């Protein structure tokens, strides 16, 4: 039912100008609003409440945290084809995203459209900065596993750079480099893993790898790196110094909206593709903010029809700098992510530090 042919027919995933995008994207999102109202009772209840207050220009944005607490889906149980979960790195609950075949197919297809823009249509030899067991259990995908599998489509001769003990397997990596000498290579990993277990290990041991001409794509957030004072420019410098990598693309995306990711352009800005949009929201007023102002990131995507995740309010802070006028030449809004919303101070006597009472 969720026909995205119009989007697929565009010459690139960054084709639509602001006026056209407004019209096409928003009528599509409005159709998804109606679809989820009709097929997800829980969504309908939230929507009735939010619209009564007139937030977000009467659009309904679900806080992402809800997917950790409730099973929000707009398809019958027998149509659920797989369930994506966010990584369970902490003891917190994980998000559970119910996918039917249609939504899963759109996710893969849109990811292809966007990645091809950066990698070309040829499948490149792929070096994965992770260990192979992360994708072993295909029935319960972790977000990391799902991300690696999703991007594996764009590579061939998949080679894992790390062993299960998180050590670099230099022999394997060197063999991979030798085999594809002089040809472009696709490198993928999660930001923190790439930094901690690859770049830093190389830097500290003084080893250099010849990966010049390759494209590094990475994602997963900067939180852990900001804590150790590593920002995007330091990351890129070290990528060049240790491996000669000059093309580095970070991307912003979340398990609640797989597919329509926001990739960093050649000028260091994250870009909204035709399939998605970004808004910055003032948490106090729950209204959208103008360009240039920092606030909560709200993301919209035309892909989710099996679960009501087409408009989400994240807990990340960001700033949109403009639309269609990025110096890189791509259309769409371009922005920066500044990190997670700082936590509020908790007072009172409720059980907020439940961990403390555990023996």
């Amino acid at each position, binding site marked *: 039912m969720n026909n995205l042919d119009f989007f697929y027919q565009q010459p690139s995933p960054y084709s639509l100008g602001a006026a056209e995008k407004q019209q096409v994207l928003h009528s599509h999102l409005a159709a998804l609003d109606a679809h989820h109202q009709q097929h997800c009772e829980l969504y309908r209840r939230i929507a009735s409440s939010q619209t009564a207050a007139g937030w977000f220009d009467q659009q309904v944005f679900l806080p992402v945290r809800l997917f950790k607490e409730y099973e929000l889906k707009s398809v019958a149980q027998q149509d659920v084809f797989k369930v994506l979960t966010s990584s369970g790195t902490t003891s917190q609950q994980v998000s559970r995203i119910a996918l039917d075949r249609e939504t899963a197919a759109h996710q893969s297809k849109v990811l292809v459209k966007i990645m091809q823009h950066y990698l070309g249509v040829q499948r490149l030899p792929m070096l994965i900065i992770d260990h192979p067991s992360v994708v072993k259990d295909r029935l319960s995908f972790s977000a990391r596993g799902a991300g690696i599998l999703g991007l594996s489509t764009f590579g061939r001769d998949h080679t894992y750079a790390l062993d299960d003990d998180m050590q670099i397997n230099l022999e394997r990596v060197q063999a991979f480099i030798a085999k594809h000498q002089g040809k472009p290579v696709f490198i993928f990993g999660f930001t923190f893993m790439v930094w901690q277990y690859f770049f830093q290990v190389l830097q500290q041991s003084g080893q250099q790898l010849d990966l010049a001409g390759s494209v590094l794509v990475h994602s997963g957030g900067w939180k852990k790196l900001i804590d150790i004072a590593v920002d995007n420019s330091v990351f890129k410098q070290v990528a060049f110094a240790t491996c000669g990598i000059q093309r580095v693309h970070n991307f912003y995306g979340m398990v609640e909206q797989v597919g329509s990711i926001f990739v960093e352009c050649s000028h260091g800005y994250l870009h909204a593709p035709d399939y998605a949009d970004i808004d910055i929201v003032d948490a106090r007023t729950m209204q959208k903010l103008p360009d240039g102002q920092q606030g909560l990131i709200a993301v919209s995507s035309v892909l989710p029809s099996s679960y009501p995740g087409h408009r989400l309010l994240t807990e990340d802070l960001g700033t949109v700098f403009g639309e269609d006028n990025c110096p890189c030449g791509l259309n769409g809004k371009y922005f920066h992510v500044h990190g997670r919303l700082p936590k509020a101070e*908790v*007072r009172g006597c409720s059980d907020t530090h439940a961990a403390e009472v555990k023996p």
Partner: protein
Amino acid sequence: MTLSAIRLLAPQQSAQSVEFFCQERSDLLTPFSPAALEFVETLSRQLLRDPAFKAHPEMIALGYWLRKANISRLAEQAAVPTAVTNHAVRLPRGLVFHVAPSNVDTIFIYSLVISLLMGNKNLVRLSSKSSAQQMLILQVLNQVLTELPDNPVSHSLMVVTYPHDDTISRQLSSWCDARMLWGGDNTVSHFSSLPVRPTAVDIKFANKYSLALLSVQAVLAADDAGFARLVRAFVSDTYLFGQQACSSPRAVCWLGDTHMVSQASTKFWSAVDAAVNQYPHGLMAADFMQKLVFVAEHAIDYQSVLSPVSSDMTLTVLNTELAGLIETRHHCGRGTFLQTAVSQLTDLNAVLHRGVQTLTYFGISAGELQTWLQAGVPGLDRLVPVGQGLDFDYIWDGVDLFASLSRFVTIR
């Protein structure tokens, strides 16, 4: 024995070991001893006079409650009827072990003070997670201890912390004569599982929920000054500590003519909305996000709907059916109110339970409330006029702290 993991926070130095302190009983005082009165008075003066506490309303409120006039009043209220004093003497219990909530809330200090007024020795366990509020509490206690080095109370108080360790908690529990447990339901249940000696008492203050009851007619009929007072009082009950205190109302129930409810509620919330935007509530983006999540959770669970009465997230009002009025699982406070209406008091009985503590009221006569209570209600510990929600009372959560923290020796 792992008692070496215990860190002494106040006094900063002590000649006594924790072990000795906990087992020695020869140094107990008597109820309302001059020494204890001097200690409390000094503590109050420190809180009210030191500019360091100016920015902390909870510390000022504590100092205010501990002021001499109020303690004298308490002493009168706690006075034992002559019928009893003729054949009974009140004495302290012995060692009281206070377990403070992990998010340090000043409320446990109130019971600590009552305990030392009764002449007990006191061992306080603070969370090992240090916080700004915890620092303030220690700062003021250490100031008083330094100022009164010869006051016997200064030697019968120890504040400690230790990383979570059941062996230590078990040992300290086994030494005390009374244990005061403050905290969330999990903390209280967990500590309860560690035994105290057979002669000791456990006093538990778990998480509680409070609400306000407003008369539709009284709100509509109130004159300007009275209405402004109501709004100010309501705001300070609810926004002073970000609505996190157990006795801060989290719900508003309207009582009266159901046709007039929307008129009264619009009048009331518009005024509250204006007032909170002038109020130093300290709510930040993360708080608003928390509220947004709760709005969704409550809509899912009870089909509640946001009321458009507020201009932004500083005030959040959710219209709900009676069944959704008392929501203890997700309610995040921070200026969030569940609202419903009933036409008679007894309608509330259907949703009240033992987890409901305070009911603040406006425009309803004490007689009417008495009649309702006397017929039996399934919850509620205290009913106070709007504006007195946060006032501490020696009868808390239905427990007479003077009685619980002392013992009677009868003589015939």
